[in-house]
């Protein structure tokens, strides 16, 4: 695909940029529906047990209250619940208000629907639950003995010899702990549900309008076509909106029962237990090499928290199976089921956790070998994927090490721990690598050229922040070699051609390819029309002989504007819809995106306060479609990684089984003043096999490997290995006083 030269600045801006910064972008809670009512949830205050009694009378009698929903009146009103009493609750089947059982603290036990939000909040405070408590478990350490395999068929991975690292000349063994990271995008979980007859319209915070559509339709066992889901703007999601949660089902049910439109928006506190989190995970890594630094064996084990009702599973140990060339690898992944709310994917899911352990262990091994950490990685660089023995479709990870190291000034680093100082601060440099699957699934896009020359691109993809709109537009602009002012994009609506759920760094590869294919098909159609109405000599010209540029179709020096083409054909518009998906290349190659994160930080020698002063992230994500948005997305991942490494932690008070820091005063996410200058370097070489546009995706690798880079930099600055995140100053304890 050709690049466009000399693009105007606005041509690379987000399609929703001005709307977002002027308040014009409507998020799901912001639609004005006549007669709207407000749902407010009541969370359980115990972690396990049952509701002995629920007194809703005062709430029902409170001013403005329309209805109070709970297990006392919902159960059989929902067709799917009624049909299958034995239905098992998991992350796909919420069964909200289904029975009197309490499975975790913060579980919704009732919902008040009132005519104003304030009245609903007040009435919700009047609901009194009497519980019969049962002993609960929320402590991972204490429950590891009860860990289970993720499913009955799950097999531990073994390549050649188990625990071969122990026989290596040099090896390390270490445990790494990572706490729960709570989903807290800026936009809270929010939804409006509106039934009209047997049709349902949902304004939803979702990463996939079609998966939401199927979900709500299944609740009421109606045809999916009866459900329209609208989500053109999503204020961040990071994985929390990959499926529908109890608050969303409760709202759909409330709207049905009250026969009114109902809006629910979670509170920040409710976000801590109602929309998932990156699960607390304990890991063990044993890794060994020859004296020369040639890896002999890797053993990687992980124990991850999940709820009592769902076997939520991540690819935490998977990168260890193929990241490095290593003859012997074995991995074990176990779940620790406890009385907690359900975890869910969070940016760089699994891999971010697993690579935290593996990349810290690589650093520890490098120090034990007295070898540069980058040299150790390059010595064990895999050219063929060692897990499936396929060649990579493209892999420029080595180039990432090179350009990143140069940018951060890696060669100025004195490798000796606690050896560098700057302005009275201890200085640390660290590196960590990231890897994630470069996927491609199936999507459909429609390209429509109208008689005014306006090109409209449509596909139902969500844009949870990365700039999917401008990505779609940019592919179309490149395809038609045109500037942006004639190109328009529509997304985030089930009335549009289907696209997959946005997640797993898939969207650019999948939807971008569909846009590309639809644009190509539209150009082919234009050539057909050209032959019918412009060239009337009956001669056939090959498609390749046509040029499309700046609103005109050009053949042999003859330029015909799109407007003329369509008018001469006597049409209003030309439109094509194309489905686009991966082929058998997926069997021939291994597909991955790669990143390397370099960090420079300062540590105050008296207080242990850590300040990241520079981040350089070099990324191989194939062709970069929109550099401005790709850079923004990388920056977002880096910021998330800084939080993961230094501040973020959902802290349970195990006595009560509840979070002790369920608010933004106590749960620290990095904000502007915590973020250093971030340099993003793109290799920007198209992947020749993945898809027609050569793009691999980078939403996940933006965070994967960042936390270990910081942990390794903390070691370099201080000589202290902190192996449990977040690395708070009390764990560093280097105070010189």
């Amino acid at each position: 695909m050709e690049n466009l030269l000399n693009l105007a600045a606005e041509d690379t801006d987000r399609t929703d940029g001005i709307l977002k910064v002027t308040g014009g972008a409507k998020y799901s809670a912001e639609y004005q529906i006549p007669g709207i009512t407000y749902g407010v949830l009541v969370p359980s205050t115990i972690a396990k047990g049952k509701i002995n009694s629920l007194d809703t009378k005062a709430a029902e009698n409170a001013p403005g209250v329309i209805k109070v929903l709970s297990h006392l009146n919902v159960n059989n009103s929902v067709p799917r619940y009624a049909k299958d009493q034995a239905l098992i609750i998991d992350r796909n089947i919420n069964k909200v208000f289904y029975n009197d059982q309490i499975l975790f603290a913060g579980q919704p036990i009732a919902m008040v629907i009132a005519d104003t939000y304030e009245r609903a909040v007040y009435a919700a405070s009047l609901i009194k639950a009497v519980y019969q408590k049962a002993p609960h478990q929320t402590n991972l350490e204490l429950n590891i003995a009860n860990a289970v395999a993720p499913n009955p068929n799950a097999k531990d991975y073994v390549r050649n010899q188990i625990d071969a690292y122990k026989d290596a000349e040099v090896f390390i063994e270490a445990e790494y702990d990572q706490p729960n990271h709570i989903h807290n995008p800026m936009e809270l979980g929010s939804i409006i549900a509106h039934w009209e007859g047997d049709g349902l319209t949902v304004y939803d915070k979702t990463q996939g309008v079609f998966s939401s559509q199927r979900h709500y339709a299944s609740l009421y066992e109606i045809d999916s076509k009866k459900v329209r889901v609208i989500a053109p703007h999503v204020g961040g999601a990071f994985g929390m909106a990959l499926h529908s949660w109890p608050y969303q089902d409760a709202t759909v049910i409330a709207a049905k029962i009250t026969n009114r439109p109902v809006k629910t928006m979670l509170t920040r506190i409710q976000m801590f237990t109602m929309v998932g989190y990156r699960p607390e995970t304990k890991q063990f890594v044993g890794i060994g090499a020859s004296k020369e630094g040639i890896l002999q064996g890797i053993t990687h084990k992980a124990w991850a928290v999940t709820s009592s009702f769902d076997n939520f599973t991540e690819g935490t140990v998977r990168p260890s199976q193929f990241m490095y060339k290593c003859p012997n690898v074995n991995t074990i992944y176990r779940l620790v089921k406890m009385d907690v709310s359900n975890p869910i994917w969070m940016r760089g899911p699994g891999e971010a956790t697993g690579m935290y352990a593996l990349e810290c262990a690589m650093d520890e091994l490098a120090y034990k070998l007295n070898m540069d950490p980058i040299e150790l990685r390059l010595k064990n660089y895999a050219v063929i994927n060692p897990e499936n023995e396929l060649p990579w479709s493209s892999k420029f990870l080595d180039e990432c090490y090179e350009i990143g190291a140069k940018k951060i000034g890696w060669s100025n680093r004195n490798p000796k721990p606690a050896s560098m100082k700057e302005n009275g601060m201890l200085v640390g440099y660290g590196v960590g690598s990231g890897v994630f699957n470069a996927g491609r699934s199936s999507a459909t896009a429609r390209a429509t050229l109208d008689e005014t020359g306006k090109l409209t691109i449509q596909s139902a993809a969500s844009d949870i922040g990365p700039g999917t709109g401008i990505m779609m537009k940019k592919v179309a602009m490149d395809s038609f070699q045109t500037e942006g002012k004639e190109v328009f994009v529509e997304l985030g609506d089930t009335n549009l051609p289907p696209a997959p759920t946005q997640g797993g760094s898939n969207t650019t590869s999948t939807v971008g390819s569909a846009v590309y294919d639809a644009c190509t098909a539209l150009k082919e159609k234009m050539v057909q029309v050209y032959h019918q109405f412009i060239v009337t000599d009956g001669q056939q010209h090959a498609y390749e002989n046509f040029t499309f540029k700046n609103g005109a179709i050009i053949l042999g020096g003859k330029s015909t504007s799109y407007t003329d083409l369509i008018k001469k054909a006597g049409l209003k518009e030309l439109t094509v819809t194309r489905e686009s998906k991966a082929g058998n290349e997926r069997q021939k190659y291994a597909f991955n995106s790669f990143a390397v994160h370099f960090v420079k930080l300062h540590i105050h020698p008296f207080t242990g306060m850590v300040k990241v002063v520079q981040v350089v992230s070099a990324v191989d994500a194939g062709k970069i479609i929109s550099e401005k948005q790709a850079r923004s997305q990388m920056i977002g991942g880096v910021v998330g990684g800084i939080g993961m490494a230094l501040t973020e932690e959902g802290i349970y008070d195990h006595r009560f089984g509840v979070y002790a820091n369920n608010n933004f005063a106590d749960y620290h996410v990095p904000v502007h003043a915590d973020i250093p200058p971030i340099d993003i370097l793109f290799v920007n070489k198209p992947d020749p096999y993945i898809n027609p546009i050569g793009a691999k995706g980078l939403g996940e690798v933006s965070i994967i490997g960042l936390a270990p880079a910081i942990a390794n930099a903390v070691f370099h600055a201080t000589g202290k290995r902190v192996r449990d995140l977040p690395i708070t100053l009390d764990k560093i304890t280097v105070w010189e006083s």
Partner: protein
Amino acid sequence: MINFDYIRMGSISSAVKALDKFPDAKIIAGGSNLIDLMKRNVMAPTKLIDINPLPLKYIHTTKQGVQIGALALNSQAADHELIKTKYPLLSMAINAGASAQLRNMATFGGNMMQRTRCSYFYDTTMPCNKREPNSGCSALTGINRMHGIFGTSDVCIAVNPSDMNVALVALDAKVILKSAKKERTIAFADFHKLAGDSPQLDNHLQKNEMITDIIIPENQFYNNSYYLKVRDRHSYAFALISVAAGLEMDGQNIKKVRLAMGGVAHKPWRLYDAENFLQGKTASLQNFEEAAKIAMKGAKSYGHNDFKLALAPSSIVEALLKASHLS
């Protein structure tokens, strides 16, 4: 949040009269803490007395030093030329607290009345003696990383969260309190109290009184002041430890010294013994370390906050080094 009455007062006399009449009413100024507490049902006043129209927004010099009205904004003081040049410790402390948005709303009186950030105090599903006397202290054996190490009681180990208060106690500030019947002036150090057996009370303000003024006596600490705030996040976070240090130097000799800490006690914690030790001594690392050791006498930790026993003296030394320009 429950329904509440709201009245707006135009004069100090009408405000204190209203307080007399409605002893359970709460004064609201910036509201940056009270509204949060009301939203979470931690505080549920049935009446709010809005004092924003009162003429208490001034910052001016007097014979004694500087007089600050209770409604002066935190940002107003932090950016005030007089405060920046003559009382930089206060300016530094205020700017170390909260975010710019909050400092633009928060008033002096309101900041003094700011309640603890103990998460058990905020979460009404868990026991807390400060919120609900005799219900128990969840922090004693719970998550107590942020909690106190000085003057704690066995019913409450919460800390005062303010940075401004730490500077004011170090600077020997005074507070004017007014009721319908009388006006009294007390030392800032005597305004807040330890938890003792009445953790529900943060201070000695009577129900019928309001804060009208803060007075800071003139001092010569402005060349050698430093506010060190140690926290989990650089941008903004409540202090794990903070140290306010003001020195009056004669060459390398310490003529006068004021030291106080935040994040360690139920009230801003003045380090009198350490001050006495340093008075008349040379500014040196060795003396600062000795002073820090003295300051730590009687400290007691509760598990998660054990690190404060080492971090606090280290922070005292760092603040003194910075204030004396030794580092």
